[in-house]
């Protein structure tokens, strides 16, 4: 069988398509990081001391366990919250879809610190939620939402929801609505139809979203450290501590290697039982789902209420940010004692902020373009590749998601320094593309599943060259994947602070880095004004868009 040799004639095209991403990963990812990993075995002589310490100590075992537990529960929570939301999103009008997408993406317009403070204001013992519940008489004693496991869940699900909602939305969109009608015709009740048809057909979306959320959660630590307690300490926090404060790169990389091996094993098990290949639905879109007569009123009500609750969950902290931004004491007192426009004035008089905003935008756009090219090309190449190496290449392409960003940052720093590429926007954009390409890859790969290769062959058979076929036939069909991938790539870049800290200088600082600097020694309230303006601007863009569409 031709399957055995990866370098056979048949594989030439696919390999060519995979090459750009593989080369970039080897040069910018594997090579520099290998240098850091080398130090996990000692600087001069070979030793396993760091590993002995990492594995032998009860504390690190506990922290590894915490990390996996938090990632798992966050993933399950994100599925539960996102499922009805994405379902409703897939069954409403296009302008409603835009509105809901906007709601899902809202958390990204605010820095982690502002987001967390908003949650603290809502959830603390004398916060809005507890006071409300007490007034209604639901509770006598305030509930402790914060500085424990529930705080971490709330904070992380809030920000990771887009990674769950968008793949789910894609899966629902590819379900043929006629199936439900057929089921009904054959006597299935609404719940039976849901359980036997919708649930299994959306499973690939759940798997894709779940995988992304799980992988991303593992590297998180800022939200848990601000909204959780000591029991919610995560491993990336320890890696950063050993790397930045202790300068013990041996210990840091030993922890990272263990994390990498654990995650890759989980990934392999997942691959074996669920199959990355089977993860994405291969359905042809027939008639899209509609919220219509095929469902009972009760069922519709349940979905609509769950989706509304999810939307409130997403919006609530954002609503707090607006009054916060004109409060005299935004980080320490709510409701505000007195109001002021001082923070907006700061923004106006200090060009740092607007400059950083445009730099961030420029870098995000570059990162989107680079990762779209690399991710799409690799996804197409891999789907056409016939080789036993396929799952390995697939796992390899995903690794930038698993490696803690701080390690990628140090690796890139040492790679860029001799090239004098530190401080260049392009350098940071390439770094962001490295983080974002797996997302594009997953999303495009998912939409390629519903692309029938026979159509491709037919078009080429009828005389179209490959690029005409791509433009006219393949592109429209993978368009949703490209859109989802672009959104992921954009927010990955726009939200990143760790790479920015290492790879930019004063002239090329991005917005998250300026925000980070504002809170290192004190909490600069200007960042709340920044968040308020970003939310406001994105709202205006959305509303204009909706109005223009209606005119059409």
């Amino acid at each position, binding site marked *: 069988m031709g399957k055995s040799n990866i370098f056979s004639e048949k594989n030439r095209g696919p390999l060519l398509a995979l090459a750009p991403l593989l080369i970039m990963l080897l040069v910018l990812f594997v090579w520099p990081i290998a240098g850091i990993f080398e130090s996990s075995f000692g600087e001069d002589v070979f030793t396993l001391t760091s590993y002995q310490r990492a594995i032998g100590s009860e*504390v690190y075992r506990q922290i590894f366990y915490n990390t996996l537990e938090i990632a798992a529960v966050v993933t399950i929570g994100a599925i539960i919250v996102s499922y009805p939301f994405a379902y409703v999103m897939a069954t409403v009008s296009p302008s409603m879809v835009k509105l809901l997408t906007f709601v899902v993406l809202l958390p990204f317009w605010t820095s982690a610190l502002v987001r967390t403070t908003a949650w603290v204001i809502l959830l*603390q013992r004398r916060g809005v939620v507890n006071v409300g519940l007490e007034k209604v008489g639901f509770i006598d004693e305030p509930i*402790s939402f914060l500085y424990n496991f529930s705080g971490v869940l709330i904070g992380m699900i809030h920000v990771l929801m887009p990674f769950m909602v968008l793949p789910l939305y894609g899966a629902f969109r590819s379900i043929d609505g006629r199936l439900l009608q057929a089921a009904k015709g054959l006597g299935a009740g609404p719940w039976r139809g849901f359980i036997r048809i919708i649930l299994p057909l959306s499973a690939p979306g759940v798997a894709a979203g779940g995988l992304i959320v799980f992988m991303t959660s593992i590297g998180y630590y800022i939200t848990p450290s601000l909204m959780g307690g000591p029991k919610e300490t995560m491993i990336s926090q320890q890696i950063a501590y050993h790397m930045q404060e202790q*300068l013990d790169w041996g210990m840091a990389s030993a922890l990272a290697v263990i994390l990498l091996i654990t995650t890759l094993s989980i990934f392999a098990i997942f691959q074996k039982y669920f199959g990355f290949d089977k993860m994405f639905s291969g359905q042809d879109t027939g008639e899209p789902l509609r919220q219509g007569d095929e469902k009972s009123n009760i069922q519709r009500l349940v979905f609509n209420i769950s989706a509304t609750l999810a939307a409130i969950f997403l919006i609530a902290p954002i609503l707090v940010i607006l009054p916060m931004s004109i409060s005299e004491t935004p*980080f320490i*007192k709510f409701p505000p004692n007195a109001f002021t426009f001082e923070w907006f004035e700061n923004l106006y008089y200090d060009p740092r902020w607007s400059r950083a905003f445009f730099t961030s935008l420029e870098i995000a756009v570059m990162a989107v373009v680079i990762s779209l090219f690399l991710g799409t090309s690799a996804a197409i190449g891999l789907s056409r590749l016939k080789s036993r190496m396929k799952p390995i290449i697939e796992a390899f392409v995903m690794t930038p998601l698993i490696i803690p960003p701080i390690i990628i940052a140090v690796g890139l720093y040492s790679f860029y320094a001799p090239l004098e590429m530190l401080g260049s926007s392009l350098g940071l954009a390439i770094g962001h593309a490295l983080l974002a390409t797996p997302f594009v890859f997953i999303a495009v790969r998912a939409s390629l599943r519903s692309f029938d290769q026979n159509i491709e062959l037919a078009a080429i058979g009828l005389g179209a060259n490959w690029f005409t076929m791509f433009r006219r036939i393949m592109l429209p069909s993978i368009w949703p994947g490209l859109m989802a991938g672009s959104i992921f790539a954009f927010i990955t870049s726009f939200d990143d602070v760790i790479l920015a800290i290492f790879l930019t200088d004063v002239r090329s600082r991005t917005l998250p880095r300026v925000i980070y600097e504002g809170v290192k020694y*004190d909490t600069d309230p200007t960042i709340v004004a920044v968040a308020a303006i970003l939310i406001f601007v994105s709202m205006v863009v959305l509303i204009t868009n909706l109005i223009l569409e209606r005119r059409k």
Partner: protein
Amino acid sequence: MKSLKILIMTIITIGSIAGGVSVAADDELVFVSWGGSYQSMIRKAIIRPFSRDTGIYVLEETDPNTAKVKTMVDSGRVTWDVITDGEMGVLRAAKAGLIERITPAMVNQDHVYPKMKNAYGVPSEVFSTTLAFSTEEFPDGSSQPTSWADFFDVNKFPGKRALRAAPDTVLEVALIADGVPLDQVIEVLKTPDGLDRAFKKIESIRPHVALWYNAGGQPVQALGSGEVVMAMGWNGRFQTGIERGLPIKIVWNGAIAELGFFMIVKNAPNKGAAVRFLNQMVSPKSQAEFYKHASYGPVTPEAWDMIPNNEWSRLPSSPDNLTKAVFLDAEWWVENDVELRERYQAVISK
């Protein structure tokens, strides 16, 4: 043809990006600190007068995190001259060979408080970890907490507490609360029995700690909102809260004082300018400027002559506050930090 054009454009772009990196000149100095209000204080109090007096242009950068300095020094491409950090940062950087030794011939520190000196950095300011309580919970006129013993006494002062999620400064205050006299705290801490004693004390308060904080702003927010009634935290952060009208009072008794430092990066391109910069920074005149912008205390007694008397009480190194304070033994902490952090993490996450 078209692809050739793109190739050429790419080469030109990359070239211009690379060429844009400026080469340090003699009358230039690259200063790297932590941004925000801290760096703007330094800009007003030191950088501007320095540039005016010497004609040396100071190029400011932000975020001198040690991992970055290490990569820079290891790769042999040092572009920074002066960086700032706390005392533990200085000791670690010195141990890793990332910073220059500073001799008396380079920077005159004769007027600096003797116990603040360090061979690898010039002290810039004193800040403290203190106790603070909510005056809404314990108003003036009623019984108010006055010591760490009160912090650990939930019968006398009921309510939730906030403590730091890292052990340095927390172990010290636990010993003070357990009755160790201020002048013996550091000594006792270094014994195994002392450590056991400190951890035991922390275990006793554990059920009453609502917040183990990682960020400096958290205890202020928690006190202001009533989430906790007593907290440990940095004096500067509490002071900002007080100035913004929060019901907070600082207790200076048993404060743990720490030092900020300026350092010269190993093989700094403008060492001469860096040395002049450090001399200016530590001069009593510059030192007496800091209080105007933040609640940091000067590192030289001579500065007090230039600071109005009514400002002294909020500054950590004022003669009165200094007698009630213990200095963190950074050297001991650098030696033991990893191990104690692991033990502390195990204790507080039980």
